[in-house]
């Protein structure tokens, strides 16, 4: 119980956020800038931060009445200039075929010009702004989803929230839109928040909505851990640059990745939410206190400090909680051959492959010379291998040769872009990151490949792969 309260001094609560961090660091005129999306867009662009292109803005009923709706592009985003928490945002994917006054939303629903006029009218009336103050509506370019993040997002575009304090990126999370959040990435609206390791830009833990911890995207087998955020380094730089330009001392930077433009700065947030702590399973207050009073000389310096101080910690935690060790995409391993002979090799970790394979030459060194010699006498070409008959062929060969060929423990069929092959499989264990794995390896000619061994999914169940390592 006492520990619990001690831990609470590391977590940032509403009271401390407002009083200690927002009040002294985000002065009211800079807060006004952050709340005015059109103005902050302009300011950021002038300071060399890429932002979504402004298409048009409507600030009065008369402009609305005279607006030429045919000037709108195929797809766009309609936003209230002073909207809160992602409310009032309308995302349009494309013009409905054969019409010039109807569009299709992310949900597949059709919106007509009349619907859009109504929406703009509500925005002008202040239906989405703080205390119903009259507001301006604007149209901006719709960003295109980057292919790296495509599998993880439902319809809308994911974005990355980075908290910056004293020019140092402190904590970050990837926000994924879900069915419930209607293509918007805000956690308040039911999106998913995924914690990010500051040093490497790989994701760690995830939260659905405000506080539900999850491992996979609901209703799918998409693991939320270990996603490498593309352009991570650039993103950290943009975030720090935006903080310096906006003069917001305590900033929540929202950055999205466009398929063609790369990282694009979406929004300045003067009152960043606290759920980022749940997504990262870490306390923000402790991190903020660590960089209090540091004198940061440049954008690069700030990024470096953030990466050094707040990276890796999570990796250790991850190993502790999952019981799995984190490995990179290439690992030094020790193979244990037929008579206990040990050979050290650099192996490629290939999560795209199911089983592990070793090069013929390596197999010979490990003591599987005879297997190879006898295998090579078999004419595997005579089997017409297809995905349908692979099981039968495997069984047929195994039944026929398992007695005559010592050490042949199985037969593998592998389909790849360079053609399908039938390979002999031997038992062979290896040691990676101090863990011994008993594995079955298929033997293949990898002479022209960079690595003489690949380790596939089947033998990786004790590990988590960090692709940036």
């Amino acid at each position, binding site marked *: 119980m006492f*520990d*619990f309260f*001690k*831990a*609470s001094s*590391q*977590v940032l*609560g*509403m*009271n*401390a956020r407002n*009083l*200690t961090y927002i009040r002294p660091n985000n002065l009211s005129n800079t807060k006004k800038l952050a709340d005015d999306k059109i103005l902050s867009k302009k300011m950021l662009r002038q300071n060399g931060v890429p932002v979504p292109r402004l298409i048009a803005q409507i600030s009065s009923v008369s402009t609305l009445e005279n607006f030429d709706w045919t000037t709108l592009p195929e797809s766009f985003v309609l936003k209230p200039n002073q909207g*809160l*928490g992602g*409310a009032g945002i309308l995302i349009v994917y494309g013009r409905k075929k054969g019409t010039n006054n109807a569009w299709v939303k992310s949900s597949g629903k059709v919106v007509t010009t009349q619907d859009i006029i*109504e929406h703009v*009218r*509500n925005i002008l*009336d*202040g*239906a*989405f702004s703080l205390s*119903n103050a009259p507001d301006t509506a604007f149209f901006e370019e719709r960003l295109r989803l980057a292919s790296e993040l495509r599998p993880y997002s439902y319809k809308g575009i994911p974005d990355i929230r980075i908290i910056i304090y004293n020019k140092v990126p402190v904590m970050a999370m990837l926000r994924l839109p879900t069915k419930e959040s209607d293509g918007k990435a805000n956690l*308040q609206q039911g999106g998913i928040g995924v914690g990010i390791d500051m040093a490497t830009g790989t994701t760690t833990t995830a939260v659905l909505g*405000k*506080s539900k*911890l999850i491992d996979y995207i609901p209703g799918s087998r998409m693991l939320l851990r270990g996603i490498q955020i593309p352009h991570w380094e650039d993103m950290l730089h943009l975030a720090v640059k935006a903080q310096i330009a906006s003069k917001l001392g305590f900033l929540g930077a929202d950055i999205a990745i466009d398929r063609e433009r790369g990282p694009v700065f979406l929004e300045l947030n003067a009152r960043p939410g*606290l759920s980022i*702590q*749940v997504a990262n*399973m*870490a*306390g923000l207050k*402790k991190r903020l206190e660590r960089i209090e009073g540091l004198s940061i000389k440049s954008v690069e310096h700030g990024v470096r400090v953030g990466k050094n101080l707040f990276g890796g910690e999570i990796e250790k*935690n991850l190993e502790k*909680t999952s019981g799995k060790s984190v490995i990179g995409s290439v690992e030094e391993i020790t193979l244990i051959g037929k008579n206990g002979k040990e050979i050290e090799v650099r192996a490629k970790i290939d999560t795209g492959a199911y089983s592990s394979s070793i090069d013929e030459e390596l197999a010979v060194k490990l003591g599987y010379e005879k297997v190879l010699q006898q295998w090579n006498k078999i004419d595997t070409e005579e089997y017409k291998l297809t995905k349908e008959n692979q099981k039968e062929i495997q069984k047929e060969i195994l039944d026929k040769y398992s007695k005559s060929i010592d050490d042949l423990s199985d037969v593998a069929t592998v389909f790849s872009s360079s053609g399908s092959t039938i390979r002999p499989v031997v038992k062979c264990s290896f040691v990676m990151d101090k863990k011994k794995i008993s594995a079955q390896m298929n033997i293949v000619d990898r002479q022209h490949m960079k690595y003489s061994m690949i380790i596939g999914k089947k033998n990786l169940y004790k590990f988590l792969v960090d692709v940036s390592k």
Partner: protein
Amino acid sequence: MASPCIYNSKEVSCLVQHIMEQSVPVETVTILLLFPIIATLVVLLRQVIGMHAFGIYTPSIIAIAFIAIGQNNPSNIKHAVTVYLVVLIVGMLMRYALKKLRLLYLPRVAITITVVTLSVLAVLTFAGSLSRVGFAGADLFPILIIITLVEKFVSVQIEKGSRAAIILAAETLIIALVGYLLLSTSTAIGTKVTDFILRYPYAILMLIPFHVFLGKWTGLRAAEYIRFHEVLKKIR
């Protein structure tokens, strides 16, 4: 120049007596003196417990309305809660009913208020027909105050969604009821508190240092211990 206090009663302080001598009704004095206490309660529940409600004004004024309604007849409080719920339910239904009409904000709220008022009137009539004394005994203004809650509810519903609005309305109701229990003369604790405040009205000033303390307090709220319990478990 205030007239001098001739005798210091055990019941009320000199100051309160003086005010009452100027023909200010005792109910008015009591409720005005209770208002800062209710405001303090709302602040305490927000900063320390983490209950949000509709700001500070709405829960305070609803609590006052409850106290006023319960003053003559404590059993009226259940009617007051009924009215509160009717206002919210009708307000919410009206939002869905009016959605398709695509009206501007204020006219839409006006229609909502009209329907809500008529519903409340129906409830009052029904409640009156059930008991002889009836709810009709309750004053107009407390009821009106509860009705105006609907605007707040509708605007929150638009801004943050129905779920958030319902949670905030529930929190507001709880705060108002806590205020009623602690401060109404028809409850045991409430009688003690009101007696105390009429005897020592200056005690109200003691609340200000407490407000300052709450205004500087940066600890986690009780609700945040729940919200971050996974994180706290992990990092301890």
